[in-house]
């Protein structure tokens, strides 16, 4: 996803969410998932690499805390299903790791860090067709920054962040980047 390239150390970005706010947003999303899925019994969380995966794991941990429920959690790499593969040199693949219980008949909640054009999510929906037939697919994102190019929306949003297309949103997570923050910077300069 173009929106989350490497954060550059020392870049003068503007933090729009700090660690506490990310924690609260995830707590709220976890509650919303439980509410919308009537207790989360048939839920499978699938994170989209890279940063969707730790987010999915955190949501699973929260749901476990609240309801004592162990939600199956995995990852779904969408690289091979992207529509922009030919625009760039071949890129490295992420890991696909579906829970042993499978996705048939489950409510799959896709988890990603930033929702932007919607193309990653479209690729994820394609990637989901081969492993099984979920009963429903929902989408949870930490940041929705607008500028959709496809008719896709998120079911659970951590924060709506109106941005200009010149700007770049970086989500930093402790598991990957050693700190939790959402930064926004102007790539134009």
């Amino acid at each position, binding site marked *: 996803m173009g929106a989350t390239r*490497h954060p550059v150390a020392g870049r003068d970005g503007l933090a729009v969410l700090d660690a506490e706010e990310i924690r609260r947003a995830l707590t709220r999303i976890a509650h919303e998932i439980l509410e919308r899925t009537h207790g989360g019994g048939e839920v499978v969380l699938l994170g989209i690499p890279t940063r969707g995966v730790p987010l999915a794991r955190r949501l699973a941990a929260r749901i476990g805390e609240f309801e004592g429920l162990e939600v199956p959690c*995995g990852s779904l790499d969408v690289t091979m*299903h992207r529509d922009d593969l030919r625009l760039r*040199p071949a890129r490295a693949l*992420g890991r696909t790791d579906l829970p042993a219980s499978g996705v048939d008949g489950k409510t799959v909640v896709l988890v990603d860090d930033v929702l932007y054009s919607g193309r990653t999510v479209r690729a994820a929906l394609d990637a989901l067709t081969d492993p099984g037939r979920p009963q429903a697919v929902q989408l949870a994102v930490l940041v929705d920054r607008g500028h959709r190019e496809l008719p896709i929306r998120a079911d659970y949003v951590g924060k709506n962040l109106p941005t200009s297309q010149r700007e770049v949103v970086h989500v930093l997570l402790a598991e990957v980047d050693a700190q939790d923050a959402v930064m926004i910077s102007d790539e134009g300069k």
Partner: protein
Amino acid sequence: MKRHLISAADLSRGDALLILDTAEELASLADRPIKKLPTLRGRTVVNLFFEDSTRTRISFEAAAKRLSADVINFSAKGSSVAKGESLKDTALTLEAMGADAVVIRHSASGAAHRLAGWVRGSVVNAGDGTHEHPTQALLDAFTIRRRLVGRGGLGGRGGLGGKASPQDRGDPGGSSPRGGTALDGIRVTIVGDVLHSRVARSNVLLLSTLGAEVTLAAPPTLLPLAVDTWPCAVSYDLDTELPKSDVVMMLRVQQERMTAAYFPSVREYSRRYGLDAARMARLPEHAIVMHPGPMNRGVEIAAEVADSVRSTIVEQVANGVTTRMAVLYLLLGGTEFPEVAP
């Protein structure tokens, strides 16, 4: 990555690790009910085989088909080549048909290199004479890594507990290692007919790039002249090498390429350089036995060794499809390479 895969020497350590890591991710596809990805839809892969080969051709064909590419098989027998067409004219025909990749197997060393100058698509060398067979080396490295180093990539198959490396997402060039492990310090002994073996040459180059310590064990007559310039050690005595090997790779005695008497008799060769149960017992506990196939049971490898749990021979075939998928994806999956002037 370069545009063609002609020699294992074309691969930097980063390229090689990228291929192995990609293969690692693709390996999970084999466990799924639908073993297909849409990535190379609309791309054409031509298998151009001037030399008999079953496993390599089928392996490339399966790899291309699992990535949804169109596959055209071209074998020299019963084709225009049998009527006397030159390699160049065949290449121009393929070019006109719009091949995005050509997988070539040829009895002449250097054929793949020549072909790369004539076609616009990517050329993958599937064995040229006694020169190289880079995808075999890649699948061997992949097999060694899976068996002895543990799965590379992002912290093992468990995935959930693994730590994603920060380099994971960026680098559109895709040329940097993603934290996958190499083969540093693994001791590999390659045994037998090195002289006629393209597998040995590609393996020596690739495995040393990946940090393994390679030793060739062969009779002096079956070692190439310039072997002292290769990045490996040489020994004439298999028995002293076995106890310090993590991997033993047996090579087929290629009688069809032998134009002179390289050893007194098959029996004597087998007694000195063949791997039988007694020799296998001298290997360390964890060591594995590899063979690129096809095997001559009873010559370089005894049947009980080939069928033992240490043997990775069948695994190598399965890993071949996965590794070749990774190669085709990395060569064809991204942007087209800038066109070169004809």
